[in-house]
C-alpha cells in the first residue's frame, strides 16, 4: 500500500518535471524569437543605411524598396564632400567635442575631488549648487547665452563653443561619487609624506579613478558630438557647423539627394560606433551612473 503511493507520487513528480522542463524550453524559444525581432528592429535601420549609402541614387529611390542592389558604388562617399562641406563639419566636431571632453575631465574631477574629500566653508552650499545645476535645461538660458557670446565676439569661434561646455554638473557629480568611494587614509598618508594637495590629487587620486574618468570621457564626448541645439545657436556660419547641425541643415524637410546625405550620416556616427565597440562598458557605466541617486 505504502509502496504504491510512493510509486504514484514519483510518477506524478516526473511528469510534472518533464512538463516543467518542456515549458521552460518553449518559453526560452519564445523569448529568443521576441528578442531577435527586437534586435532586428534596432539593427535594420543601421544596416539599411549602411547598404544604401553604397547604392546608386536610382537604386535608392525605387519602389518597392530593395535591401540589396545589383551594383554598389563609392560614388556617394566621394560626392558627399562636394555637396556638403563635410570635411569642415568633421574637423569642427572633433575640435569641439574632443577639447570639451579633455578640459571637462580635468575641471570636473578637480571640483568633484574638492567636494568629496576636502572640508571647507560653504561645502554643502556648493554641493547643492551643483545638484541644482544638473536640473537646469539648456533651452531655458540659451537666448541670453547667445547674447553674451555675441557681445564677447565669441560666436562662431571654437573658444565660444568649448568654454561654456568645459564643465558639467553631471560630470562633477560623477567624479564626486568616485572620489567619495576611495579609501579615507590614502590622502592622509600622502599628506604625512609631505605631498602637496595638487600632487595628492594628480599622483594618487586620479590614477585610481581611471574607470570613472573613462566613463565620463565617453559620456561627454557622445553628448557633445551628437548635440544639435547648442552648436546651432552658437554658430551662424556654415564653416563653423558641427556634424549634427550641418547635416540637419542640409537635409531639413526635403532631401534632394539621398545618397550623399546617407554617406554623411554614416560618416557622422562611425567614430562613436568604433569607440563603442572597444569601450562598451564605459558607455554603459556612464548611463548607469546617471541613474544613481545619493
Amino acid at each position: 500500500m505504502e509502496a504504491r503511493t510512493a510509486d504514484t507520487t514519483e510518477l506524478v513528480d516526473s511528469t510534472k518535471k518533464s512538463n516543467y522542463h518542456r515549458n521552460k524550453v518553449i518559453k526560452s524559444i519564445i523569448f529568443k524569437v521576441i528578442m531577435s525581432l527586437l534586435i532586428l528592429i534596432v539593427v535594420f535601420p543601421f544596416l539599411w543605411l549602411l547598404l544604401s549609402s553604397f547604392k546608386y541614387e536610382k537604386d535608392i529611390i525605387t519602389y518597392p524598396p530593395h535591401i540589396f542592389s545589383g551594383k554598389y558604388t563609392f560614388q556617394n562617399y566621394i560626392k558627399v564632400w562636394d555637396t556638403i562641406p563635410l570635411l569642415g563639419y568633421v574637423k569642427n566636431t572633433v575640435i569641439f567635442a574632443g577639447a570639451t571632453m579633455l578640459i571637462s575631465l580635468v575641471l570636473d574631477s578637480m571640483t568633484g575631488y574638492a567636494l568629496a574629500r576636502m572640508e571647507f566653508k560653504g561645502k554643502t552650499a556648493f554641493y547643492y549648487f551643483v545638484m541644482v545645476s544638473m536640473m537646469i535645461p539648456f533651452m531655458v538660458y540659451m537666448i541670453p547665452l547667445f547674447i553674451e557670446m555675441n557681445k564677447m565676439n565669441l560666436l562662431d569661434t571654437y573658444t565660444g563653443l568649448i568654454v561654456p561646455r568645459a564643465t558639467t554638473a553631471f560630470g562633477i557629480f560623477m567624479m564626486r561619487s568616485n572620489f567619495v568611494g576611495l579609501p579615507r587614509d590614502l590622502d592622509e598618508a600622502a599628506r604625512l609624506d609631505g605631498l602637496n594637495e595638487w600632487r595628492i590629487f594628480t599622483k594618487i587620486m586620479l590614477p585610481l579613478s581611471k574607470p570613472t574618468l573613462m566613463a565620463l570621457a565617453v559620456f561627454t564626448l557622445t553628448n557633445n558630438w551628437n548635440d544639435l541645439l547648442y552648436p546651432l545657436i552658437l554658430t551662424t556660419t556654415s564653416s563653423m557647423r558641427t556634424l549634427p547641425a550641418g547635416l540637419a541643415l542640409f537635409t531639413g524637410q526635403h532631401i534632394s539627394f539621398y545618397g550623399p546625405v546617407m554617406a554623411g550620416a554614416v560618416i557622422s556616427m562611425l567614430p562613436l560606433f568604433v569607440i563603442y565597440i572597444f569601450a562598451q562598458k564605459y558607455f554603459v557605466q556612464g548611463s548607469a551612473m546617471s541613474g544613481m541617486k545619493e
Partner: protein
Amino acid sequence: MEEIDTSVGKKRSFFRFWNQPKHAAYLFMAPSIIILLFFMVIPLIGTLGLSFFNINIFFTGTKFVGLDNFIQFFHDQRAINSMWHTVYFTLLETPTQVIVGTVAAAALSRTTLFNRFSRSVFYVPVICSLTTSGIIFSMLLDPNIGWIPYVLHQFGMNTPQFFRDATLAMPSIAVMTVWKNFGVTMTIMLTAIQAISPSLYESAEMDGANKKQQFFHVTIPQIIPSLGFCVMTNLIGSMQVFDQIYVTTAGGPEFKTESAVQYIYSRGFSAPYQLGYASAVATILFVIIAILSVSSNLYMSHKEKQMR
C-alpha cells in the same frame, strides 16, 4: 639678501596657506564654478530679465514692456499649441520608453551570452545622434521610397504618410525617440534589477510565487526608486524635445508637431527675431518643467517612504 629671504618666506607662507585643504578646495573648484556662473547662472537670470523687454537680435528699439510678453503668450495660439504638442509628445514618449526599457531590462537581467549581445545591440541607437536617427527614419518612413510604408502596404494597409500626416506625425516622432533612447532606460533599470538580492526571489519562490508574481511583488517594489528616476528624467527630457522634430518634420505639417523649444528657437533665431518674447515663452516652459520635476520628486520620495 634679506629682501630675497622675505620674498621666499612670503612665497612659502602663501603656498602653505593655499595648500591647506580648507583653502585649496576653492582653487580646485574655481574654474568649474566660474564657468557655471558665467555661462549658466547669469544667462538663467538673463532669461527672466529679457522676458520683460521688447528686444530683437539686432538690439534695435529695445524697450521695457513689463508683463506684455507674458500676456501676449496667452493670446498667441501658435505658442499655446506648441506647449500642447510638447505635452502630447511627452505623454506618448515617456510611458512607452520606460515600459519598453524596463521590460527589456527585466527580460535580459540574467547574464547569458545571448542577453549580453542583445543589451549591446539595444544600446547602439543611444550613441547615434538624433539628427542621424531623424535622417534614417525620414527615409524609412517616406511614403514613396520607404520600407515601413511598403511593409504595411503588403499587409493590406493604405500607405500611411507618417511624418507628413497631421495625426500620425507626432506618434511617429515619439516611436522614433523610443527606438533611439530605450537603451538608456534599459541600462539604468538593469543596474537596479541586478542589485536586488537573490534571497528575495528565493523566499518568494518558497512561498510559491510564479515568475509573473515575482516580477510584480519582488522586482517592481525593489526598482521603484530607479523607475521613478527614469520617469522623471524622461518627463523633463521630453518637455525639451527639439532635435528629432527639427530634423524630421521641422514642426509641420501646419505646425502640428511644433514643440515649445522649437517655437522658442524659431521666434528668437529666425524672423522676427524677438528674443524678448522668446525668453518669456522659455520662462513659462521652465516654470512648467520645474513644477513637474519638483512634484514628481516629492511624489517619488513619498512613495518610497510608503514602500518601506
